[in-house]
């Protein structure tokens, strides 16, 4: 290990770090273990091995319908937040107008505003407008909370674009649009993809906004899962949860490949 840590200080540092790694992984590992456990009630240590809960989940109409709805909603949210967010990020990086910092602050403000309140506020206004289509309401709410993520990742990648390359393309006779498609876009593609994936994952997992805007007909996955947890005892919940954990892991790996996780999160 590093020579900068030694003696008792190092012992404390590594013990706490190891402890925290265990703390972070324990509940997720237990959920996964419970999903293949043979007993009807979740007990520790887990007993036996079975895949029957997965078979049950894959035949569960409510869960499958929620899954379909969540995926469609997340896809719509991704497209919507990219359509709004990418041009806005462009304006923020390339525009030269007064109040740029204020506008940036405004566009990113849904990030520090509690999402629970964003959803509530939106519900009140949509009620007043008489908008009762839960799908549309959810889409609007999800775009509000995911667009700052897109703006952040696209702004970061745009700042790294070499404007000289664009000038070169323009000098050689390319139109603005062609320059954008052939020179700029390829350079920010991974940032745009990461922003989109972020929007997808945030939308798929979103509870605090979804809670207000969904109805009994259109309940995305987090809501259905919460309902199963709080209201009825259902031994297939660990299996549903594990499916969600695995999906998240795939998302994380793609994100890590695209831009690196730390950069994607801490931009």
């Amino acid at each position, binding site marked *: 290990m590093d020579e900068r840590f030694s003696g008792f200080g190092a012992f404390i540092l590594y013990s706490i770090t190891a402890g925290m*790694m265990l703390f972070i992984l324990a509940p997720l590992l237990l959920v996964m273990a419970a999903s293949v456990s043979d007993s009807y009630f979740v007990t520790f240590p887990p007993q036996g091995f079975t895949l029957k809960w997965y078979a049950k989940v894959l035949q569960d109409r409510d869960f499958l319908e929620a899954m379909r709805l969540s995926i469609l909603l997340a896809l719509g949210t991704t497209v919507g937040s990219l359509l709004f967010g990418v041009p806005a990020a462009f304006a923020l990086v390339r525009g030269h107008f007064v109040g740029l910092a204020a506008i940036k602050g405004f566009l990113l403000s849904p990030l520090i505003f509690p999402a*629970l309140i964003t959803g509530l506020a939106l519900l009140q206004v949509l009620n007043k407008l008489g908008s009762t289509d839960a799908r549309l309401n959810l889409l609007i709410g999800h775009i509000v909370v995911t667009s700052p993520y897109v703006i952040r990742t696209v702004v970061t990648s745009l700042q790294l674009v070499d404007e000289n390359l664009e000038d070169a393309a323009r000098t050689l006779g390319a139109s603005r649009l062609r320059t954008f498609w052939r020179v700029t876009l390829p350079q920010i593609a991974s940032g745009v993809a990461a922003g989109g994936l972020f929007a997808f994952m945030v939308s798929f997992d979103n509870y605090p906004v979804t809670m207000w805007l969904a109805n009994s007909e259109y309940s995305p996955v987090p809501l259905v899962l919460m309902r199963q947890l709080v209201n009825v005892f259902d031994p297939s919940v660990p299996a549903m949860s594990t499916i969600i954990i695995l999906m998240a892991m795939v998302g994380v790996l793609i994100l890590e490949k695209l831009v690196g996780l730390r950069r994607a999160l801490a931009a």
Partner: protein
Amino acid sequence: MTTSDEAVAVLTVEAPPVARERSRWRLALPVGLLAVPMLAFLTYFFFYPALALLFSSIQTQDSRGIIGRPFTLAHYARLINVELYARVLWTTLRISIITSALATVLAYPVALVMVKSRPMVTRVITLIVIAPLIVSVVVRGYGWQLVLQNGPKGMLNWILMTLHVVDAPISVLYTETAVVIGSLHVFFPMMVLPLASALGKIDPNLEDAARMLGAPWWKVFLRVTLPLSMPGFVAGFTLVFSLTAGSFVIPAILGGASAVMLGNLIEQQIFVVYDWPFGAAIAVVLVGLVLAVNGVSMWLLEGRRLRRPD
């Protein structure tokens, strides 16, 4: 410099900036216009709803459920004066403060190891810290429900009893402690990431110098590392506090009836009691709390007190 040199210089060095400057001026308006759809969308579906919520928090609701005049501050008074509601406010503050304090104490070692270890160790720790962040909060709450399960079949109780730490199962689930544990799990990365980035910016020579002058490790940490990492600490603390104070899922799953937080109270007022103005007033208090903490931290970060002499 000859004339031809000058011509070359003008062509290769000065011409592009001039051209770019001009095209920028011409482009300023169209490029700025690209932000208009996003601005319009957020104004209509975020800014306006937030203001409308603020407005309805000072309105009254009649027996038919119609919200309107007269204007009143009674809902705010109710939150503070009715003991049941005041207790929820204090519970929220207490859980948020304890969670962010615990997150700070536990995140420093993790962030330090993350920043100063070999690349392989750093990578593994980063992945473990960040990966669960993407897993649904509901799933993570459920995981803790399984770990903390009251009775001898819960993981925590099984471990404690097998190690003979306790003789009878302890009850952690459905207490404030359970909510703190769950919130810590969910928001821990928000503390580690800013801390790690602040620690990574510290010049290692400063710590080496202190060590060479004979300071023991804890003194190096307290006098050099800790003060220089303050921006990361402030950012992380603010994030964890804000997110915990505004959370709903974790107290709903792990707190039960004994650790109701503001978010749960709002949901109850809107969906169960249908008291919109009171629900809105609680929401405004929650937002006020979060914005106040964010404001103080901005002030600390932007004021000179925390800035490193670069």
